[in-house]
C-alpha cells in the first residue's frame, strides 16, 4: 500500500497541463505537430467550436462581423508573416496582392462561369503569386527599409492599375466589381443569395487547409531556409543557401496565400470591391495583425486577427451597453488610437506578440500550481 504523500506534493494531481512523463520514442513522434497531449486536446476543443458549436449558435451578425473576417484576415496575415516574419522581407504592399487575387478571381468567374468557385479562388492565388515574384525581384538587391519602400511601389502601382485597366472590372461604369451569384453542388456559395453559414464553412475549410500547408512548410526545410535568410543572409549563403531562390520562393508562397485571402475577402465576405479597398490602410491592417500576433508564428495570425477584428466590435458594443453615448465616428477614432497604442505597447512589452504571450502562459500552465 503506497503511503499517502502529504502536503504540496499531493497537489501533483492538480497539475492540469503536466507534460512530464510524455516521452517520445521516435523522431517522427517528436516531429508531430502537437507532441504534447494537452496541446492536442486544446486544439480539439477549438476545432469543435469552429466546426460545430459556432455554426449552431452564432448569429448572422457574428458570422459577418467576427467569424468570417477573423479567418480571412488571419489567412492574409499568415501570408504576410511568411514573407516578413519567416523570411525577413518587409512588405508594405499586402493589400495590393490581395487585390490581384480578388480581381483574378472575378475575371475567372465572369469569363468562365462554369468553373467551380472554390477552384477559382484557389487558382487566383497563382496570379498573385506571379505578380508577387515579379515585385519580389528587387529583394535580391535591396534590403530592409529600402525594400519596404520598394514594396510600396507595388502597392501604389497596382491600385492605380485596378482603377485604370477597365478590363479588370468588365468596363463597369462604377469601376467596382460585384460578386455574382455562384453555385457549388446546387448551393449558393457567393453573391447576394449566398447563406452566411455556407460561406463560413467554405472559408473555414480553405483557411484550415492553407494553415496546414503553411505549418508544414515553415517547419521543414523551406522554413529553416527562410529563417536563415532572415537571421543572417551572408552566413546562410555560406552554408549553401541560394538566397535568390529562398527569397523568391518566399514571395511566391506568401503572395499565393495573400491572393487567396484577397479572393475570399471579396467573394466570401464583402460581396463587392472598389480599387481603393486594396489601398495602404488595408496593408497596414494586415501588418498590424502580423506584428501584434507575432512575427514568425502561425498561431499569432489568428490571435492578432481576433484582436484587430474584435476590438472595434467591442468598442461599438461596450459604451452602448454601459449607457454611454458615443458617436460611431468617435468610436472609430478611438479604435484607431487604441490599435496604435497597442502596437507600441506590445513592442515594448512583448515584441514577439501575442503568440509569445501564449507560449509564456503555456509554460506557466505546465508547472502550475507550482511557481517553478
Amino acid at each position, binding site marked *: 500500500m503506497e503511503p499517502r504523500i502529504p502536503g504540496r506534493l499531493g497537489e501533483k494531481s492538480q497539475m492540469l497541463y503536466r507534460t512530464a512523463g510524455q516521452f517520445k520514442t521516435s*523522431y*517522427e513522434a517528436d*516531429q508531430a505537430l502537437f507532441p504534447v497531449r494537452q496541446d492536442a486536446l486544446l486544439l480539439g476543443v477549438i476545432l469543435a467550436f469552429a466546426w460545430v458549436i459556432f455554426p449552431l449558435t452564432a448569429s448572422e451578425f457574428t458570422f459577418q462581423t467576427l467569424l468570417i473576417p477573423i479567418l480571412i484576415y488571419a489567412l492574409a496575415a499568415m501570408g504576410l508573416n511568411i514573407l516578413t516574419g519567416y523570411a525577413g522581407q518587409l512588405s508594405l504592399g499586402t493589400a495590393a496582392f490581395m487585390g490581384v487575387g480578388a480581381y483574378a478571381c472575378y475575371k475567372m468567374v465572369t469569363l468562365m462561369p462554369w468553373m467551380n468557385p472554390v477552384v477559382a479562388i484557389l487558382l487566383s492565388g497563382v496570379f498573385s503569386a506571379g505578380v508577387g515574384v515579379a515585385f519580389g525581384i528587387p529583394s535580391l538587391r535591396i534590403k530592409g527599409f529600402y525594400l519596404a519602400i520598394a514594396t510600396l511601389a507595388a502597392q501604389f502601382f497596382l491600385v492605380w492599375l485596378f482603377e485604370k485597366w477597365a478590363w479588370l472590372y468588365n468596363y463597369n461604369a462604377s469601376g467596382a466589381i460585384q460578386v455574382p451569384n455562384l453555385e457549388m453542388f446546387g448551393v449558393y456559395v457567393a453573391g447576394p443569395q449566398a447563406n452566411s453559414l455556407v460561406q463560413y464553412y467554405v472559408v473555414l475549410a480553405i483557411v484550415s487547409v492553407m494553415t496546414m*500547408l503553411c505549418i*508544414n*512548410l515553415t517547419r*521543414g*526545410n*523551406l522554413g*529553416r*531556409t527562410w*529563417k*536563415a535568410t*532572415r*537571421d*543572417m543572409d*551572408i*552566413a*546562410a*549563403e*555560406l*552554408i*549553401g*543557401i*541560394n*538566397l535568390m531562390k529562398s527569397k523568391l*520562393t518566399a514571395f511566391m*508562397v506568401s503572395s499565393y496565400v495573400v491572393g487567396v485571402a484577397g479572393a475570399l475577402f471579396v467573394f466570401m465576405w464583402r460581396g463587392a470591391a472598389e480599387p481603393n479597398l486594396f489601398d495602404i490602410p488595408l496593408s497596414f491592417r494586415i501588418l498590424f495583425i502580423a506584428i501584434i500576433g507575432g512575427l*514568425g508564428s502561425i498561431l499569432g495570425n489568428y490571435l492578432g486577427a481576433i484582436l484587430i477584428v474584435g476590438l472595434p466590435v467591442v468598442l461599438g458594443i461596450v459604451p452602448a451597453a454601459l449607457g454611454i453615448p458615443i458617436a460611431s465616428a468617435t468610436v472609430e477614432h478611438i479604435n484607431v488610437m487604441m490599435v496604435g497604442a497597442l502596437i507600441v505597447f506590445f513592442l515594448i512589452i512583448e515584441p514577439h506578440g501575442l503568440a509569445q504571450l501564449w507560449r509564456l502562459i503555456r509554460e506557466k500552465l505546465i508547472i502550475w500550481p507550482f511557481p517553478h
Partner: protein
Amino acid sequence: MKDTSGYITPDGRQIGGTLMEMRNITLRFGGVVAIEDISFDIREGEIRAIIGPNGAGKSSMLNIISGFYTPSDGEVWYKGSRRPAMKPYEVARMGVARTFQNIALFEGMTVLDNVMTGRLTHMNAGILSQALWWGKARSEEIDNREIVEKVIDFLEIQNIRKTPVGRLPYGLKKRVELARALAAEPSILLLDEPMAGMNVEEKEDMSRFILDVNDEFGTTIALIEHDMGVVMDISDRVVVMDYGKKIGDGTPDAVRGNQDVIDAYLGVAH
C-alpha cells in the same frame, strides 16, 4: 604535377594527396592589397593551420576559400581541377563548410534547427512534398534528423537541442556552430578562430573535438588560430601570413624556428 601520394602520421592518421590548392592568390580592395601572391596547399585528412599577426589577411584568405571573396588574381584548385568563380552557396555545395570568427548562428532558431540547416545541401525535397508533409520531404526530414542527432551526440550538446540559440553562452554557441558545419559532412572544414574568447578548459574541449572530427571522420581541416600552443599541438602543417604575404609554410616545428615568423610576432620591423 602535384604530389598525390599520401602518408601516415606518427599517430596513425592517414593523410592523402592535395585536396585544395591556392595558386598565386592576390586580393585587392580598391587600393589596399590584402593578400599578395600567396600559394599553399591543403592535403586531404590533414589539419592545416593558418596563423599570423592581426591584419595579416587570414580571414580574407578563408573568405576566398569559402567563396565569399573572389581573388583579384590567382586560382583556387579543388579536388584536382580549377575552381571557377562561383557564388558562395555553390562553393558550400561542393563540400566546403565553415565556422565564423564572430559567431554566425541563426539566432531565431533552436540548436536543433540550426544544425539541421547544415544538412540543407543534402536535402532537396520539392515544395509540394514539403507542404503536404508527405513522401520525400517526410522521409528526408527523419533521416537527416538522425544524422544531425549523431553530430549533436558527438559534440555533447544534447541537453540544449531545443534551446533558442540566442540564449546560449558563448562557448556553447561556438560548439553549435561547429555542429552545423559538421552536419554538412564537408570535404573540407574551415574554422575561423574556433578558440577565440575561450578559457583553458573550453579550449581543451574544443581541441579535443577538432582532433576527434579529424580522427573519426577523416575530415580535412583548415583553421585560423591565434593560440600558439593549440596550433603547435593539433596541426599537421602551418602557413604563416604577415601583411598579406606568406612568410612560413611547413610543420609546426619547422615554422617555429623560422626567423621571419619570430620577427613578425615580435613586431620587429621588416
